């Protein structure tokens, strides 16, 4: 059993742990194939002292420990561990993509990729549904875009379709990823997913529960799905936006960055027209 050097836990890093929520993230980065990646923490590992316990952690006295395998992240006085793996736990306000698994007289049962089934009540859909008439609107196997409207202490979940844009999804395909990877796929301020949408010219909706809806021209949809899979695999490396951009460009897609791009095109036309 020889331990490869680049995997051994560096004891010194633990000793150099900064306390009291510094704005600076203590970087524990390793090199994997020449790319900088973040080192992971394991359950029971000390991740902070004097900080508040965020997601993926727990506190004992002043010390905060990791509760899941993941990446440490310190922000605003909280130390969090972004888990690599984990089920989707519904939160109020999350937009999710679900599958109808059962139909009752006053509700439909929705699978939202979580340990908890989510009922969708007839009062929470935009149609006027009569008692017992539910099958006319949604059937078992339908895919819907909904929002988590309530979660109580015993994790009874309810979803609603009353938000603008929520509906049954009739076209397109669904890609499933680990729910913890969703923020990376969306990117800072939506930058990553917007870039993929532009370059593949697909409509894409990312559900917080790890389900992503893609619709567009067939080749482009496959490309978008592949780009998303790359993010899921390489989420812990740096330089991912650039990597995805290069990947899409290699497949012949160009990024016209919104207004700026269109003006450049117009300018080119003017120049050419003389």
């Amino acid at each position, binding site marked *: 059993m020889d331990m490869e050097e680049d995997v051994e836990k560096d004891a010194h890093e633990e000793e150099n742990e900064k306390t009291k929520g510094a704005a600076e993230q203590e970087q524990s980065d390793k090199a994997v194939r020449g790319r900088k990646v973040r080192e992971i923490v*394991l*359950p029971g590992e000390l991740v902070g002292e004097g900080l508040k316990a965020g*997601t993926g952690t727990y506190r004992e006295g002043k010390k905060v420990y990791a509760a899941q395998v993941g990446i440490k992240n310190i922000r605003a006085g909280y130390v969090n561990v972004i888990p690599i793996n984990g089920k989707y736990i519904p939160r109020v306000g999350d937009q999710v993509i679900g599958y109808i698994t059962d139909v009752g007289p006053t509700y439909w049962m929705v699978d939202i990729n979580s340990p908890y089934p989510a009922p969708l009540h007839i009062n929470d859909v935009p149609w006027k549904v009569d008692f017992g008439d539910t099958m006319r609107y949604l059937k078992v196997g339908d895919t819907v875009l909904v929002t988590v409207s309530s979660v109580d202490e015993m994790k009874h979940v309810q979803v609603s379709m009353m938000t603008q844009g929520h509906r049954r999804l009739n076209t397109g395909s669904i890609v499933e990823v680990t729910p913890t990877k969703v923020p990376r796929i969306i990117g800072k301020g939506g930058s*990553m997913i917007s870039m993929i949408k532009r370059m593949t010219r697909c409509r894409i909706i990312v559900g917080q529960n790890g389900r992503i809806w893609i619709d567009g021209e067939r080749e482009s949809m496959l490309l978008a799905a592949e780009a998303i899979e790359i993010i899921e695999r390489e989420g812990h490396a740096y330089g991912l936006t650039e990597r995805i951009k290069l990947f899409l460009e290699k497949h012949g897609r160009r990024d016209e960055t919104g207004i700026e791009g269109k003006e450049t095109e117009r300018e080119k036309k003017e120049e050419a027209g003389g």
Partner: protein
Amino acid sequence: MGGTIDIKLIDENGIRIDGRKRDELRPIKIEAGVLKRADGSAYLEWGDNKIIAAVYGPREVHPKHLQNPNRAIVQYYYAMAPFSVGERKRPGPDRRSTEISKISAEALENVIFLEQFPRTTIDVFVTVLQASAGTRCACLTAASVALADAGIPMKDLVVACAAGKVDDTIVLDLVKEEDNYGQADLPLAIVPRTGEIVLLQMDGDMTPEEVEEAMDMAIKACYEIYELQKYALRRKYYRELEDALGEEGEQPEGEDDGPESGYRPETAGNDQEVA
């Protein structure tokens, strides 16, 4: 335990029948994430033991009357494959399997944050593919790795190891013959960070001092095995990254483009104090 045998289990130099010293562990290898279908999994080899563990959950409990409205339950299934032992083991639970399952589930309940998943179950399936004494410890050790692999929130991993008495000597990690013909067997499991004992059994005859000696020996070995568990989990992560990054030759840089970009931590109400 307690059969008679003519050969000496320990010779004059303190060497055991498989060549090990008194306090030497058998070779152990652990690999995390071996089953794609399971939420978490681990494969473990411990001497001649071969163990596979799969974790599913948290997920809905069926039948419903078993669910607990306040927390998750742990359902641990220890099973020996019919081909795992010399004489075919009939498939299906027997009293020994049921006992091992019960104590193992209870051991894990001490470290898993069950209150985060009310009304669910965490199913842990551990199967012995080849048995050579110490299977319950090997299984529990593998199960911990599988749980961490599944992303189940825990205080720490659980590690297990056994010690025993053979030819009036306290030895670590009994092998099959030592277990069958020895004088006592003491399996034990701990939570490494706190040192708390979450599983402790004894089968045979020992004085209180011998029990202490055996426990100390087993606990010390647990810390060694804990390193192997951690190594397995880290290795899976870096291996996956290596495979993923291996295709591209270019090395694009992007300081602001790290793993946390886009991450919105749920900072409210997560300051959970644990004793």
